[in-house]
């Protein structure tokens, strides 16, 4: 416990100091890392804790993104109603899709979450007049916090994202350690026993699914603020696959793992795509390598190494 507190303190210190010493470009990557870390942690609640893998998690990320963009472009720039709307849309989307997807399990569940996310993608891609189609909606300004700080300043924006990330992490950490979080783990470990104990297993899966969707929505909203742009690709399978890779690369059921996974993937993608012309092949190879060689993720590898060291 002590050691992990120390590590957390060091990481936090780095996160606070770093934006002042690195170039603006790297700071941009840091912002992306933090935003996608929230996204990856949200999927971890569903996949790692509740045991529900999803191929369509970008649905809630993108739906909240479009909500934020449309509100800013057409209705208001006030942050607070935008936040409420994004959370509402993500929760509603997850509540609806969860009803359909949770009728099934295993490979069916994967396929159905993918298909449902494609429904939204199809809408965003084809409904040009409303969503901008392939080009998406550009020119989304940053919202007004109604506080004496402006998000147009890049340093302020970084800290705005950092604080949102910290709040989300704290809430999710509390969640996975709470009695409710324990019940989610119980559902993952043994649904039959949970039923025998008196838990409504379906309801717990459903709630886990919705909570994951809501936090994905938070990330999706921030992502639009950062990019100033939203498009169908934000709800595509590529995005869903990317966040899955982050969670698995880092280690499922750990929350720390997905944060690391987000960091690794954002920086790797950036490095590889700027150095290698055929970078999609390398990205594909990374997916394949992670599945074959690091299925428990980096955190899992670290744990088994430290266990071996401890014994030796």
């Amino acid at each position, binding site marked *: 416990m002590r050691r992990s507190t120390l590590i957390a303190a060091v990481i936090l210190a780095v996160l606070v100091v770093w934006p002042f010493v690195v170039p603006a470009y790297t700071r941009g990557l840091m912002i992306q890392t933090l935003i996608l870390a929230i996204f990856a942690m949200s999927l971890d609640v569903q996949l790692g804790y509740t045991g529900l893998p999803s191929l369509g998690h970008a649905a809630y990320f993108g739906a909240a993104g479009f909500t934020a963009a449309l509100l800013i472009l057409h209705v208001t720039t006030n942050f607070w109603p935008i936040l409420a709307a994004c959370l509402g849309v993500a929760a509603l989307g997850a509540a609806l899709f969860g009803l359909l997807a949770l009728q099934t399990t295993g490979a069916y569940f994967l396929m159905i979450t993918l298909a449902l996310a494609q429904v939204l993608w199809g809408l965003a891609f084809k409904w040009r007049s409303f969503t901008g189609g392939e080009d998406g909606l550009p020119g989304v300004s940053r919202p007004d916090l109604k506080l004496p700080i402006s998000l147009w300043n890049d340093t302020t924006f970084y800290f705005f994202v950092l604080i949102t990330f910290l709040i989300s992490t704290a809430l999710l950490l509390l969640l996975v350690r709470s009695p409710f979080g324990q*019940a989610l783990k119980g559902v993952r*470990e043994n649904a039959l026993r949970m039923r025998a104990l008196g838990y409504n297993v379906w309801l717990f899966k459903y709630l886990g699914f919705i909570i994951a969707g809501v936090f994905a929505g938070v990330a999706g909203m921030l992502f639009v603020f950062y990019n100033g742009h939203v498009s169908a690709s934000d709800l595509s399978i590529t995005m869903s696959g990317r966040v899955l890779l982050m969670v698995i690369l880092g280690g499922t059921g750990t929350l720390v793992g997905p944060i690391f996974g987000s960091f690794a993937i954002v920086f790797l993608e950036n490095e590889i795509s700027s150095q290698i012309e055929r970078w999609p092949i390398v990205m594909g190879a990374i997916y394949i390598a992670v599945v074959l060689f690091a299925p428990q993720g980096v955190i899992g590898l670290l744990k088994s190494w430290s266990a071996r060291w401890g014994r030796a």
Partner: protein
Amino acid sequence: MGAGMKPLLVESVTKNFGGFNALNGVTLDFEPGERRAIIGPNGAGKTTLFNVITGVLPPSAGRVVLFGRDVTRLPMHRRSALGLARTFQINTLFPKLTITENVALAVQAQTRLRYVCYRPWRAYRALTERCDALLTAWGLWDLRDARVSELSYGDQRQVEIVLAMATQPKVLLLDEPTAGLSTAETAVVTALIKQLDPSITIVLIEHDMDVALHLAERITVLHYGEKVAEGSPEEIKTNPLVAEIYLGAGLT
């Protein structure tokens, strides 16, 4: 609950699997605080009977009544909430969680606490104290921080019973609690079952005739999905039909 109300009633239950009757018109009733053993050779329908009572499987015909309430169409978790608990023939635990976490999940199962998501579960004193008490009482205190997957089979078998007891049931179904245990372990588990609160109705499936005769006041014999005999241990011991079934099936 009115006086004399049966805690559990099984009324002409039939369970059909694709043309084969695993249970065929079985009727059973139980008294409060009764100790009942269900015996019978493999494939007699004992576990199917438990699955129908607890709601894992819906019966093809007949009904299940719990404390005077028809629960035949109630999902499993709602029946548990009425005071029904069970163990499984094959260990059905949470392998990656510690023993304490396993027990805590059972303790909080029927409280409002299970929906609390903003405070660590260890912060709830009433919850942790109940867990500690159960772990101490069942001699599992030293193992409290071990993961279930790291436990010996015999200890896992005990955790099965602890989880069921942690929900404070009024009717407890034990599916071969001593299956696969050594003689010494069997003696420990048998003694622990014997000590349970006498007001709880306990139904156990047992392969080991000695254990069944030792624990139960009444014994029901199932054979090919039908009830073929019921009575006191003495009556069952001397029942020629039962002897024939068991000798015929090559069991002791």
